């Protein structure tokens, strides 16, 4: 089959952005009105930043009435943690940290001894513990349906049982804008207000609203090494294997996860306009090009989601 020179990602009009914005705000307000203890998962990545921005708008002039939660692998980009802490103090909101490092120390989770093993898998039990410790009944997540094919099957309100499991074959039908948030004690709903946004929509909205984002989203010089075709940032958490050389490259990050699984892409895009231009023309998907965690198998995301992952 022929390959196309570029994908055909058209830019949205501001009317379309307003329509996406209204839909997300409607969802956020439903949750705040119907649930007792909502929380918002915040990674410091662009999607959770946009989600937090929308949540603030949904309730303004009131302050955000629920905490944001960071599931922290301990392997963070320092720029992202700095950003997170600034946002928390600026908005005057509560931050709850679910720490993978602490879970390792206490023996709650076991680290893999395999070289290069990341803490990605360990986030799931820590997330589920954080949800049950905080008695959270609604968990806002920034996942989008265009990201990945298991995610394309997600509801806006996604029911999770007492074990945090997602059962894709047995989801509640979701009709009109009538969301069913009824659950029993111990269960929760994952809520995805950005379900209908695409990667490019998110970027255009960031530009439209002039939202600040962590600096690693823009092209910068960084020490990297190439591992299985991905450009990984050199850090204390991830060192090259035998034969992999460290070099300096001008890169930016297209997604933000922890340092051990997030790969950079070569880029010259130093401004929002340039980033949008680059994404509109790219031929590689967001997760395919930059996430080591989705490469393990064809159904990597589906398997993790079933167990309770983001």
């Amino acid at each position: 089959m022929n390959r196309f020179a570029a994908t055909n990602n058209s830019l949205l009009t501001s009317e379309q952005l307003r329509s996406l914005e209204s839909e997300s705000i409607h969802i956020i307000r439903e949750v705040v009105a119907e649930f007792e203890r909502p929380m918002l998962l915040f990674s410091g990545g662009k999607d959770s930043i946009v989600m937090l921005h929308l949540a603030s708008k949904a309730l303004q002039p009131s302050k955000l009435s629920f905490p944001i939660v960071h599931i922290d692998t301990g392997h963070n980009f320092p720029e992202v943690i700095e950003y997170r802490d600034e946002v928390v103090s600026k908005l005057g909101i509560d931050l709850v940290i679910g720490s993978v490092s602490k879970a390792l120390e206490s023996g709650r989770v076991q680290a893999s001894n395999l070289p290069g093993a990341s803490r990605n898998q360990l986030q799931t039990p820590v997330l589920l513990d954080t949800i049950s410790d905080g008695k959270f009944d609604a968990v806002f997540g920034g996942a989008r349906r265009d990201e990945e094919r298991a995610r394309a099957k997600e509801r806006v309100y996604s029911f999770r049982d007492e074990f945090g499991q997602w059962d894709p074959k047995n989801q509640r039908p979701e009709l009109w804008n009538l969301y069913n948030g009824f659950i029993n004690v111990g269960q929760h709903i994952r809520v995805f207000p950005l379900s209908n946004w695409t990667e490019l929509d998110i970027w255009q909205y960031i530009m439209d609203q002039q939202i600040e984002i962590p600096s690693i989203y823009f092209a910068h010089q960084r020490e990297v090494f190439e591992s299985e075709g991905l450009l990984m940032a050199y850090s204390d958490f991830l060192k090259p294997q035998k034969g992999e050389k460290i070099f300096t490259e001008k890169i930016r990050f297209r997604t933000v996860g922890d340092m051990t699984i997030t790969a950079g892409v070569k880029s010259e895009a130093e401004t929002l306009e340039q980033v949008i231009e680059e994404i509109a023309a790219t031929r590689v998907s967001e997760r395919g090009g930059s996430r080591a965690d989705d490469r393990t198998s064809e159904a990597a995301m589906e398997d993790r989601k079933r167990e309770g992952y983001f």
Partner: protein
Amino acid sequence: MGDMLRIATAGSVDDGKSTLIGRLLYDSKAIYEDVLDSAEQHSRRQSTEYFNLALLTDGLRSEREQGITIDVAYRYFSTPKRKFILADTPGHVQYTRNMVTGASTADIALIIVDARNGVVEQSRRHALIGALLGIKHFVFCINKMDLVDFREDIFRPIQDDLHALLIELRIKSHHFIPISAIDGDNVVYSSKRMSWYVDDPLVRHLEKVQFNDEITDMPFRMPVQYVIRPLSNELHDYRGYAGTIESGQISVGQQIAVMPSGANTIITDIERPNGAVSSASESDAVTIRIAGDLDISRGDMFSSPNEKPTIDNHFEATVCWMSEKTSLKAGSMFRIKHTTHTARALIVGVDFKIDVNDLSGQHVGDELVINEIGQLSIKTTKPLIFDRYDDNCATGSFILIDESTNETVGAGMIGRPDFFPI
């Protein structure tokens, strides 16, 4: 909806719906290379002779293994003219509820018919569901034309059958396209093998289709979602009513009615996400402030003072039953969610069931099982503030929730569609 178009797709098993969607995404260049690579590798593992376009959309492991679509999935693609959100719904009989789900938010129904089989029960059911849910425009793709030698004399009788069905359903806006999803004929590009078809291929048609945007002319409706009260020193007396405008338009200074009390008041402020505005319209998320002290809470509704909604705790509705585990019986009780309001609902009686084959009503029994559609009489613990679904989808729709399992078991539309019998 502006230039964003929501499409619900439907087809029977093996009609090639996933292949068509794969083709749509592929030819409209909405597929990234690594996603293609992964689908191609899977095709090779299954040792299919041709590259399987359906694999571009089937998301779950069991779907790829069995080659079927299990659950509704959402796809996004855009052309320079429009952004499309496509609900990809499975064709299996037991999953028809997913079609209802996809159709509930759709502007357009895209129904696939196998040219070799013509109009089957599932096609009738899909058209009926689309009509019930008030979809404005229907596109029928007669697929697998390659397997009937691209013959016009195969296509035309199917078109005639569908046309007869659409007349029964009172659907005026429709289009029929002969396609071959597997080869791409009339999907994004015009077919060179069906010169007898002179209209636009599918994507061009979807780009061009227009509806009468009557919704802003409809009476103003805004269910109150949430009352914003900051209770801070600076904003001590602030009280804002947050919600989404479901129909009509409003401006500052305008008189509105607060339902259920029916009291009139004046809009003093309208706030949108990006600040104060002087007017707002359908589908905008807003916060409204009003003159005077009125007791207003979630579940109440702002309305135009001249054309008010109905307030009643007893009404007639068409319900599609969606639970495999239980049936709906006269006398059973459910939770009902309608606009931003929740109550308990009692099924007083099942007036009749609709036969999807001949659209006749049948007075058989007091029970609905999965995929059945019936006309019911319902009573609620508290009065609902509603319009007929025909008049206003947002204030005329509701869901039924099982009180013991919390599952969504029914989709309801208040009133009776004009194409229903009796």
